């Protein structure tokens, strides 16, 4: 029973929510990159890359990730190519 309780913990409890929210807040605090600045970085990255290849603009994500020792800026930029298989043919 206790085992089950511990398994379920971390999903429903507000403690886990607090941890996730803190993780994000601290990542931004530590880098002093505000969400607005991130949005601006994202737009500029899209502009630069679009000069060379088509970017799937709606799928672009730019954020700050945080682990024990460092913060990093992570950009995920999907290209606007419908299928890679089509290229192969």
């Amino acid at each position: 029973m206790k085992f089950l309780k511990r398994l379920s913990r971390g999903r429903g409890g507000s403690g886990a929510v607090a941890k996730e929210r803190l993780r994000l807040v601290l990542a931004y605090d530590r880098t002093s990159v505000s969400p607005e600045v991130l949005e601006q970085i994202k737009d500029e990255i899209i502009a630069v890359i679009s000069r060379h290849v088509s970017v799937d603009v709606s799928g672009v994500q730019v954020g700050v990730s945080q682990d024990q020792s460092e913060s990093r800026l992570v950009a995920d930029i999907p290209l606007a190519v419908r299928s890679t298989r089509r290229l192969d043919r």
Partner: protein
Amino acid sequence: MAATVVTITSGKGGVGKTTLVANLGVSLAMLGRRVVVIDADVGLRNLDVSLGLENRIVYDIVDVIEGRCRLRQAMVRDKRLSELFLIPAAQNRDKSAVKPDDMIRICDDLKENHDFVLVDSPAGIEEGFRYAVAPADRVLVVTNPEIASVRDADRVVGLLEAAEMNPPALVINRIKPDMVRRGEMLDIPDVVELLAIDLIGIVPEDPVILASTNRGQPASLSPDGSMAAHAFHDIAHRLCGEDVPFQAIDEPGLFSKLVRLIRMRGDGR
């Protein structure tokens, strides 16, 4: 042997800094150490009442800085422990009356004849914080397991790092084991992971603390009856360099987590 200057700070107010300083002062003195506790919260003097010494104050730290008395005259000797002294804050002045160099000079003077100087920092990250950490050989950052307090603690850790001070150690105060068990409170490993500094103390929420503060008799004076007082004594031992295992705070499963936690200590930021 020169004293170690330990500054206790938190960023956020109300997390239990003053109570921790009063109890650590008592615990260290009970271990036979010669201790001075300094109330650095000029304008909001409180450490005196925590220790029950409020009726014995003649001079304060600003009197020392401005030359109205000698350092020795501002040191209030505890009536229970002959090697515990308080240097009170001034109540009718503000933080601009103290400069970092003043704190460094006072602590240097105290170092020769004592083992520990504990500095109770004001809340915040402004000038009061800056003069309180200026003389520190070690800094303890106090947090409660809740979002605002952990966030502010992280700011403090960042500022200490930027000032190239020794890495601070963490005290997690007011843990409520039943809430942790229900998943409704940040757990100890969560907070340690987020802040990424070494842990030096875990203090459970304990009604004994309020009652003992009401009386001006810090709980650490009688460690047997209280989980929190026990935790304060553990921290005192750790400050003296002893390797004291962390108490399992009555929660099943917590102990194994603590063992893991202790293994992951020292990862740094």
